[in-house]
């Protein structure tokens, strides 16, 4: 995969895969035009500058559903392509045998860009790429974990193991209208209030409800639908049909389609994008501000790096070995467990504890040097910074053959 260098390409091209390998960059024409226009208005902007710029545009349009919002998201999704790729690439070998292609994993992760942007706090010192790096990794892990569990489940088990939100999201994705959604939702609610096994909490292969339970389910459904005037009565047979269908929809919700975040054709017309001109109003002051902010960030990061070096020096040898195995060698937890002759869950606990020590070191430095109290609202940012640094630091030691 070629790393993009051209500014316009960085904010308008998307990674294409062939036989599960990244091949070339496909340019989205509208984003290309928009970026070209923007750069023409402000030629001195760096990559960082434009990232901040499009984030600001995103923020302005945040609660609207305008083409301008989609434009900002599009530029930022393009910007994050490499980050997503490397993040996915890093996670995949760790999770052992995965029946999923790299390209599909990539699509799953990149599809979360809109949510990621919504949660990203631009006021914190961590840049978008750093934050996204952690988020993509977590997103993919979570997705794979779910799929694995879902594959073990029967239809009735699956319905018992999902949240209400997951059910509704899956039904919405299947293009159900509100009436259908309500019907299915009430059926599910009636099912989960009345169907259980008294023998064991295990749910994967729970038996289908028996006749007596279906009666209870139908009665519950009938009671609940009084708050939903457009929902008609239903027989147990109908409820069963809906529920089995709902389970199918939930299952297929986890199987990615080609429709990823990459610009949806047909949603916006050329005219919409032409008229909602964003990118023509860049002011020279903004570029200057950004350069200063970047410089300050870089200086802080250098200090933080020094703090981390020191913190790692202070760790005992087993802790350092653990970090090396995990970050430099990319070893799976299973492998580490075998290597160190401890149970696997103990590996993740130890790694977590070591990482926590480093996190505390940064937080303490922030408190003493920058006078920023360690509070919960900085954790996401600091954690992402730490993760990125650990990955790049150990990658460097791998290349140089050094060990710590």
């Amino acid at each position: 995969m070629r790393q993009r260098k051209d500014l316009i390409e960085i904010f308008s091209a998307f990674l294409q895969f062939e036989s599960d390998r990244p091949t070339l960059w496909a340019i989205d024409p509208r984003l290309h035009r928009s970026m070209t226009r923007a750069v023409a208005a402000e030629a001195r902007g760096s990559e960082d500058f434009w990232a901040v710029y499009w984030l600001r545009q995103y923020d302005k349009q945040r609660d609207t559903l305008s083409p301008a919002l989609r434009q900002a998201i599009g530029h930022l999704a393009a910007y994050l392509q490499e980050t997503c790729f490397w993040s996915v690439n890093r996670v995949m070998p760790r999770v052992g045998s995965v029946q999923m292609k790299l390209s599909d994993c990539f699509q799953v992760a990149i599809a979360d860009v809109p949510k990621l942007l919504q949660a990203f706090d631009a006021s914190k010192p961590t840049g978008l790429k750093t934050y996204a790096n952690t988020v993509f990794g977590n997103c993919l892990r979570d997705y794979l974990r779910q799929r694995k569990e879902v594959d073990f489940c029967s239809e009735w088990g699956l319905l018992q193991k999902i949240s209400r939100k997951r059910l509704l999201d899956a039904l919405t994705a299947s293009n159900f209208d509100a009436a259908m959604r309500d019907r299915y939702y009430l059926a599910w609610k009636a099912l989960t209030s009345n169907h259980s096994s008294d023998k064991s909490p295990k749910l994967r292969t729970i038996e289908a409800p028996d006749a007596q339970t279906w009666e209870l389910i139908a009665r519950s459904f009938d009671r609940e639908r009084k708050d939903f005037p457009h929902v008609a009565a239903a027989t147990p047979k109908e409820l069963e049909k809906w529920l089995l269908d709902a389970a199918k929809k939930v299952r297929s919700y986890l199987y990615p389609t080609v429709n990823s975040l990459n610009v949806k054709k047909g949603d916006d017309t050329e005219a919409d994008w032409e008229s909602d001109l964003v990118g023509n109003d860049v002011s020279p002051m903004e570029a200057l501000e950004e350069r200063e902010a970047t410089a300050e960030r870089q200086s802080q990061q250098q200090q933080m790096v020094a703090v981390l070096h020191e913190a790692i020096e202070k760790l005992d040898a087993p802790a350092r070995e653990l970090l090396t195995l995990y970050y430099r060698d990319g070893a799976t937890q299973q492998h580490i467990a075998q290597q160190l002759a401890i149970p696997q869950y103990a590996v993740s606990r130890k790694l977590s504890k070591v990482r926590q020590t480093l996190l505390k070191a940064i937080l303490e430095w922030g408190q003493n040097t920058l006078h920023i109290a360690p509070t919960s609202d900085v954790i996401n940012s600091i954690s992402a910074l730490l993760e990125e640094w650990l990955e790049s630091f150990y990658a460097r030691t791998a290349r140089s053959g050094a060990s710590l």
Partner: protein
Amino acid sequence: MNQLIPITQLALPIPAPMSDAAWQQAQAGGSIEAMWNVYLNQIATELLCEDLAVDFPQIRVWPDADIWQFVNGSVLELNNKRLVLLPSRAIDNSELVIPQEWVDIPAWAGDYFLAVQIDPDAELLHCWGYTTHQMLKSKARYDAVDRTYHLDAYQLIADVSGLWAIQELNPTEVTQAAIAPLASVATTQAENLLQRLATVPDPRLEIPFGLWGALASDRTWRSRLVELRQGATSSPRTAANRLGDWLQNAFATGWQAVEDFLGEDAELAFALRQTATATPIVRRVKALQLPDCLLLLLVSVEVETADRLSIQVQLRADDRTATLPAGICLELLSSDDEVVRSVVARDRDNAIQLPRFRSESGTGFKIQVRSGETTVCESFLV
């Protein structure tokens, strides 16, 4: 499976005995929702308290398990902060659902809220995010129908180890937004409300939140409500007689020693089918009131092996000279209500009995007496 959990989050295996014990405890719950609340919260509190006590020996659990009859959520106390655990069996981690009780009742309001996924199949507990009261109030979506706050996974702090780091570095961080006090409730009004809530399907949604909050957060009122609701749903007739308790000499009301009824003829009663045995036999008798007569049900229980009991059931008239009404029927039913054995009184029988039968530990059966239109039933659990 553990590899798929980032090291920034907490994953703990659930020991099988803990799961079994929690499940047993959960069976005493009312609704299925309450059952799951008990199971999930019991495991969450026990496992997390044990794990966190290593680094934070001062951690404490709120002991009030009856809360789970009404609402999900449990509390660990640490450094004068309330950590509200919100366990769920959902595997998707799409959102964190927080009942309003943990946010807007001053006596309960949490400082931190921890999203806990519990998978009874994978036998794993997974903390996948946390938030503070302040963050919740500013970002969460409130559902007025269910009275719950909802946070998308992305809105939580994904690095759970950060929570522990902060407990060490800054345990007094400001976590709570302002909480309006609840209006106090007079005792008479409370009693009226409790009576009303005794029979409704979902008490927490029935009355205005302010009133509900005041009732639920008061220990006395809450346990009164639990009592009222249990009384409303179970009837003494249908509660099963636990024969295991009989062997420990504990009997539900109504079951008396045979000697009290039949005097020296107690021995006579069981002479009908005698078995020479050295092991102790427990015999009890209960009076059954039918519309036109009083009958005695005699149950004799003998231990055959550690898991098996030998049982004999006899029905007789209350007066040793009287005869049973002709046509009266004594039946043994399986736990699925299938008639397994049946015996009918003929003219001038003063007692009828079922053939001695064996039952394994954990099985249930019923003894039914039918006379014309009337049926009287006693449930048993071995």
